[in-house]
């Protein structure tokens, strides 16, 4: 099988004032289609930088990044935007929804930017809302929703374009433990049932347990990369609706 993500000795250097910071220190990594990867590490370990590069928001200082065989590290700003709109889904810690905008409109935004506005595409919005149990909330403004609901809207927005890679940067960081479990079950299901590849950053071991593979970063280096066998197999067998 084709590697979905291939990082080859990726470096990322920042200059902050007069100090040079090495955020990624030659990371090489492959992620296969359908994997659920958790990225862990202390703050400043390079997790966010890695996510930004994987999400085509940033380019590596050196080294190569291939996404589905395309060398993303060589692309222009507009080509990166194109990849983001068609292949990447983002879920953030602080939800990052458009405020004073309805749930439905938030989920539609990626369709506008990927120029997919046909009937099948708008049907997919409805379908996505159903998967995430947001149908009854579609006319609500996002600032009226609870944290868990907002994060589900953000997930819906991230997957509405059928991304090949779903990136989540501490998606449970702003949620209580019960809601966190709910949201993690959503991710688990998206991975199991729909085969969406997920890379998820977290601090918490509880959350990392949902992933099949855990990568630990330290000071921009890959500290460990372990395949976990205990990956919540019991939850994944449950039907989608019952979790939500």
């Amino acid at each position, binding site marked *: 099988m084709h590697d979905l993500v291939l990082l080859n000795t990726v470096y990322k250097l920042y200059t902050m004032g007069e100090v040079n910071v090495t955020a990624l220190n030659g990371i090489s990594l492959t992620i296969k289609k359908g994997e659920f990867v958790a990225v862990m590490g202390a703050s400043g370990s390079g997790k966010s930088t890695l996510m930004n590069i994987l999400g085509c*928001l940033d380019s590596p200082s050196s080294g190569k990044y291939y996404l589905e065989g395309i060398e993303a590290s060589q692309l222009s700003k507009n080509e990166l935007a194109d990849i983001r709109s068609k292949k*990447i889904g983002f879920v953030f810690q602080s939800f*990052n*929804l458009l405020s*004073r905008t309805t749930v439905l409109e938030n989920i539609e935004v990626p369709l*506008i*930017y990927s120029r997919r506005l046909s009937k099948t595409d708008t049907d997919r919005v409805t379908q996505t809302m159903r998967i995430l149990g947001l149908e009854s909330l579609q006319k609500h403004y996002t600032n009226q929703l609870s944290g868990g609901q907002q994060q589900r809207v953000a997930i819906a*927005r991230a997957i509405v374009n059928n991304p090949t890679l779903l990136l989540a940067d501490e998606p449970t960081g702003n949620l209580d433990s019960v809601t966190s479990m709910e949201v993690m079950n959503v991710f688990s299901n998206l991975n199991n049932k729909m085969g969406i590849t997920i890379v998820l950053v977290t601090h918490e071991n509880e959350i990392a347990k949902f992933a099949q593979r855990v990568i630990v970063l330290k000071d921009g280096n890959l500290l460990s990369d372990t395949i976990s066998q205990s990956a919540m197999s019991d939850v994944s067998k449950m039907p989608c609706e019952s979790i939500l």
Partner: protein
Amino acid sequence: MLPILKIAIRAIMRNKLRSFLTILGIVIGVGAVITMVSIGHGAKVMVDKQLESLGTNVLIIIPISTAHSAVRGTTGTITLTAEDALAIKKECGAVSHVSPGIRTSIQAVYGNMNWTTFVSGVGPDYQIVRNWQLASGRFFNEQDINIMAKVCILGQTVAINLFGTSDPIGMWIRVNNVPFKVVGVLSKKGESPTGQDQDDMILMPYTTVQRKIMGVTYVGVTLASSVSAEARFEAIEQITALLRQRHRLKPNEENDFSVISQVEFASTIAETSRTMTILLGSIASVSLIVGGIGIMNIMLVSTTERTKEIGIRMAIGAREKDILFQFLTEAIVLSSIGGVVGVVFGIVLSILISYFGSWPSLLSTPSIIIAFFFSNIIGIFFGYYPARKASRLNPIDALRYE
């Protein structure tokens, strides 16, 4: 509706008061441009119309030098005679018609009606020189001049004030207790460029005015017409030379008369009104530009405020162009709304000014269209910089912005 337009309208509606104030600048700018252009256009049309009615080849011969008119006017003798006028017609090749003129204030009486006005003594050429049609009756002929006929022709204002709606032709009016027969009525001419009612006067043969009313032998302001509009300068030279010779002026003596062209006189007024239009239009344009700066200011604030939103949009796939067009559309929607409201405002204001200010204003469709499109161009021009600034943001920094 286009999604981009929907986003722009929502962003505008989010800050209603702010958007309203921003739009107000454009409304005032566009409204002012339309109003000022309408007023200027109206004034120009009015002056043009009057210029046309004056005749482009009319020359005015004034029997006092303009150089020292105050001195001579009080002490000097008036030297222009009817013979001078006839000589001009006979000897100046560039002059086709001459009408000696003499004017005095009188009171005209018909029945129990009376009207204080001017009587103008003129020659048979007067009608041609002034290009003035009769509403009814006939004009004076050579015989009327020769026999000092007691006939008169009424201006519209006089005819209406003395006779109302009845026909004055053939009736007798009394001027200084002398009866005069009305042989014609002039057509309406309206106001002169200086604002006088040209229809408020009575015409008589100049010989009649000289002998029967004033008892003098000289003539006053005499009108002549050159053979063509182009020949008017040549005509002025010929008249000047002839009159100097007839008045036996030595080379070092100044003219005891002046010859001016009516066109130059009227075009001075036209020029003044044109200058005023340009001035008013420029002031109005400045307010439109100030309105544009207002849009730019608000768009800059708006893009800064919405840095996070821009970051989110970029993270979920917005290209630079998408962000650029989003904010540009917002600026254009703002300025277009301002343009539409401004057009309405300008039209209403022009109508009000011409109605209450007795100043002619003429709405011109091109000025409305130009003002509207100009407001859009202002929107694009002043919206481009903030929009480009927004589109150039780095998505990571924008996302982190709080």
